[in-house]
């Protein structure tokens, strides 16, 4: 039955399957734990994590793909140094990333004060801070995957497109990026997982404020000191696995 569906219908089914799957994850977890008493404890961090991870994946995806494109196609010295700098969030401890982000974003610092005046918002200890921290954590995965995928596109196809009268921008949008979509989707999936699971930098920049900045990852730590910890962990693991399986399926369907 599913095999008879067209490409768009299949994507629509998969798009619908993700929230349904997440809901099923919750349901199964609750049934297994024999209690739904902790829904109130988990639902807040869960929805906050989605509010953080989705825009963070978009931000990291757009900037990461752009950076990956420049690194793959640009012919300038220091490309590898730039890639190493962009990859620092993978290598450095998340708390160090969080420390530097605090230095940059806090209203009390020179840069942070400027950013606060320009944006009109304080960028730390709120959802905006969490999104920025998660974006920075997800960025290198998107960038590195995009670079590898774009470098893997047959340059002869891009040459053929130029002989068809396509400008470099149209070659990128009509040929290179569509052909690199499988690798880019993989990078976005990993980036989304990283944003969803971000802990250290989020803790530093967002704090662990119950009801405001306590994401799923932060809630896990809190559950260790609460009697409902087993239920919490089971729910979190099932939600994370279901969500990432859904995102992975979506990535494959676009490829």
């Amino acid at each position, binding site marked *: 039955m599913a095999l008879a569906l067209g490409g768009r219908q299949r994507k629509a089914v998969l798009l619908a399957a993700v929230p349904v799957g997440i809901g099923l994850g919750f349901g199964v977890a609750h049934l297994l734990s024999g209690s739904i008493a902790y829904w109130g404890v988990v639902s807040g961090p869960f929805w906050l994590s989605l509010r953080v991870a989705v825009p963070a994946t978009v931000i990291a995806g757009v900037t990461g793909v752009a950076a990956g494109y420049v690194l793959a196609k640009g012919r300038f010295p220091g490309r590898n140094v730039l890639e190493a700098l962009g990859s620092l969030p993978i290598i450095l401890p998340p708390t160090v990333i969080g420390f530097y982000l605090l230095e940059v974003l806090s209203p009390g610092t020179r840069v942070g004060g400027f950013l606060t005046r320009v944006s009109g918002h304080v960028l730390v200890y709120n959802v905006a801070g969490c999104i920025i921290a998660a974006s920075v954590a997800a960025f290198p995965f998107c960038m590195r995957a995009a670079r590898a995928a774009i470098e893997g596109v047959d340059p002869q*196809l891009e040459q053929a*497109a*130029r*002989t*068809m*009268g*396509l400008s470099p921008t149209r070659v990128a949008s*009509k*040929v290179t990026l569509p*052909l690199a979509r499988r690798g880019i989707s993989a990078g976005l999936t990993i980036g989304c997982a990283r944003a969803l699971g971000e802990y250290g930098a989020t803790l530093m920049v967002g704090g662990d404020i119950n009801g405001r900045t306590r994401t799923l990852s932060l809630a896990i730590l809190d559950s260790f000191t609460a009697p409902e910890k087993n239920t919490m962990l089971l729910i979190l693991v099932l939600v994370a696995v279901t969500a990432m399986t859904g995102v992975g399926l979506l990535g494959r369907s676009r490829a």
Partner: protein
Amino acid sequence: MTAALEVAVTRRIGEFELDVAFTVESGITVLFGPSGAGKTLTLALIAGIISPDDGTIAINGEPVTDVARRINVSTQERRIGMVFQDGLLLPHRTVIDNVALAVRQARGRHERRSLARGWLERVGADGWADRRPGSLSGGQRQRVALARGLVGDPALVLLDEPLSSLDSAVRRELRALIRDVLVSSGVPAVVVTHDAEEADELGDAVIEYHDGRVTGRRVVARPDTPAPPSAETDGFGST
């Protein structure tokens, strides 16, 4: 009469040096010679995919490459159509989208697709318009590539060994089709081949290549061409 193509270039790649000069006025001109003679390199220079070390290239009298005057018109602005050895169709787009993407002269999607469908009909490929290139045979792909090379109203069409990857039966069939379509379109064409029979069947004029030099030229007498087109070499190998 302004020549459709004037080429006088040199280009060194490692030990190999290309040093050719010739003029194409109309019809189908074949660059014929053994592998490694510099034929495909010449097409890449005409298309602007590679830049020469020295020399000039003009299409319809307009210089697109002139090393001394620092003129190097980008590939996408040269108004050429190109048919590659293995088609090089975009695998993620349908046949009609591949052809419609090459339309330069129309803006709207409907008009582009309409032009593309017309060319697919002319090459006998309209039956596969909604298929992906991966599901086509080699001969079918080359028909589509021919439509894609001509749909953009090019001033010149370049065909790089368009039949070399096909079996002999399909090759014979496509030779006739390519010649018919190119002659009826009136667009000057330069075809690269190392097959002598193909050179004579396709070309109105044949320019012979050997080891990076033009070693001769001849006009092919054929009844279907009213006025014999010319392809002149400006000295064999000198620029």
